[in-house]
């Protein structure tokens, strides 16, 4: 069975993929559909959805087009989710690989370091980091990455530990491959599937984290993100439900889709490994 066929066997995953693609398309089309800045105040404030043509989702507290914000926000939320996950992988994968491959003292030291990061409550640390660096896309991405790499490191370490004594790794050692080659060419490719699955969930978590930060007022004020929209709508939730509802649903759908896709990836990537392991 091809990879996609296996993936598509999981109906949820297929739905997730479709939602995700739709959101991506939304993000890409945003500048075409709404060429004007989503910050522009274009109608009277608190316009309910479907009341005036061109404002299917209504307007917000200052008369900005919610639909425009939602589409432009898709871009920002996805970007923050993706980039922060990438950065977290860049920290976590090498760290976990080295710790798991070499073991011993190096592993001890690196794992103490990881534990140390896990001892400080994630969200609290993220808040402090953003507050210290002052809110901006860069600082938010960094903060999210800094609090989300430890699980990556642990996962990669565990995978490396279980793979480092695999016979094909020992064979590679015996033919005189260097440690670096063994780590990169022999072991790493075989840890990719759990990493990919984890990464898809991390993107989801990052989007949630960004929205929580924005909710506390720690978002980047120059970009329209979903978290920002909910945060800004929080105070008017009683008179304008749609302001927090639509971005809330957008986050929910995205996170949902990413999770479903993650599950599908897991299904698609793992049976082969399971067969090979048995």
């Amino acid at each position, binding site marked *: 069975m091809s990879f996609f066929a296996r993936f598509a066997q999981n109906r949820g995953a297929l739905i997730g993929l479709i939602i995700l693609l739709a959101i991506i398309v939304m993000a890409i089309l945003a500048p075409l559909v709404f060429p004007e800045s989503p910050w522009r105040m274009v109608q009277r404030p608190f316009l309910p959805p479907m009341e005036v043509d061109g404002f299917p989702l209504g307007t917000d507290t200052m008369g900005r087009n919610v639909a425009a914000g939602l589409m432009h926000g898709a871009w920002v939320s996805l970007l923050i989710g993706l980039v922060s996950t990438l950065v977290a992988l860049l920290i976590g994968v090498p760290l976990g690989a080295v710790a798991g491959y070499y073991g011993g003292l190096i592993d001890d030291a690196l794992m103490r370091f990881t534990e140390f990061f896990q001892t400080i409550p*994630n969200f609290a640390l993220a808040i402090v980091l953003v507050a*210290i660096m002052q809110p901006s896309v860069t600082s938010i991405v960094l903060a999210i990455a800094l609090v989300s790499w430890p699980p990556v490191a642990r996962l990669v370490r565990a995978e490396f530990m279980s793979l480092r004594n695999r016979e094909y790794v020992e064979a590679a050692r015996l033919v005189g491959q260097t440690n670096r080659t063994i780590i990169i060419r022999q072991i790493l490719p075989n840890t990719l599937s759990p990493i990919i699955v984890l990464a898809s969930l991390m993107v989801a978590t990052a989007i949630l984290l960004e929205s929580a930060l924005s909710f506390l007022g720690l978002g980047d004020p120059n970009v329209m993100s979903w978290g920002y929209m909910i945060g800004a709508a929080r105070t008017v939730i009683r008179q304008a439900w749609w302001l927090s509802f639509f971005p809330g649903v957008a*986050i929910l759908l995205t996170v949902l889709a990413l999770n479903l896709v993650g599950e599908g990836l897991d299904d698609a990537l793992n049976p082969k490994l399971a067969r090979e392991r048995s």
Partner: protein
Amino acid sequence: MLYVRLILMRLLKAVVVLFMIIIFNFFLIQMAPGDPAAILAGEAGATDEAFLRQLRERFGLDQPLYVQLWRYVSGIAMLDFGYSYRQGVPVFDLIMARMPATLLLTGTAFVLSLAMGIFAGSLAAARAKKPSGSLIMALALLFYATPLFWVALMSVVLFSVYLDLLPAYGMYTVGAGHTGLALVLDVAKHLILPATTLALFFMAIYTRMTRASMLEASQQDYVKTARAKGLKNSVIQRRHILRNALLPIITLAGLQAGQMVGGAILTETVFAWPGIGRLMYEALQQRDYNLLLGIFFFSAALVIVFNIITDLVYRLADPRIKEGS
């Protein structure tokens, strides 16, 4: 004896980690822009140089950094966490005053999420191929994907405003003067919304984890053995599958318990729950360094305590750890 040794060892490790955390946070917080004295002065709406000097001297902020650090660390060794700049009260007292509320909230949410999650997860695993099982998983996914604060807001609107069933905020009815059982019930009533909100997300995690873990456990040989014995399916599920499936959940729960303290920040803010999560956010805004450091210290300590408890529970649950390596 074994446990004593284990706990001693873990505590020793904890001291090292906590020490690192103190140092790390100390420098981290120093990097934050904004001088606490200036913020206090700013709040007052008027300031002059004398006023700032006075405040800085009082907090020891006029000293070089290493002196401040040394003072702080040596203070902690004697359980002296210094004074809150803003509130002028010993940090230790402030935190201790708020700690019970946080423990109550996170503890309740923790137990709730774990119990419900394991229950729902095992149900979903038992009905893996049936619509009811899929429904449980769909709900779990929904709870997992919904932002915590959004649930909090919505539940306030629904349960407090429209239905008027539950109090929307606070820990007890101010001015009601409840004592004894009445107070307990009053607090319990206030606890329902925040604890449930906080628990939902974690419940979703445990549900999914329990299901996955149970499905994996049900593939094991010993389950086949159990079936070969002629045991009832329900007994197999409970005694053989669930018990083994719980092991990874214990580990996860230990990790999550620590994160709950962080997650409580949002919940405490929305529900005006007087816990340390909220105190932390306020302290950060006000650059109340001593207080912030103290809270970090205690929440890290809390995480470590949770981890140790997890370890012990794991040991109780898995006989292999006790004697083996």
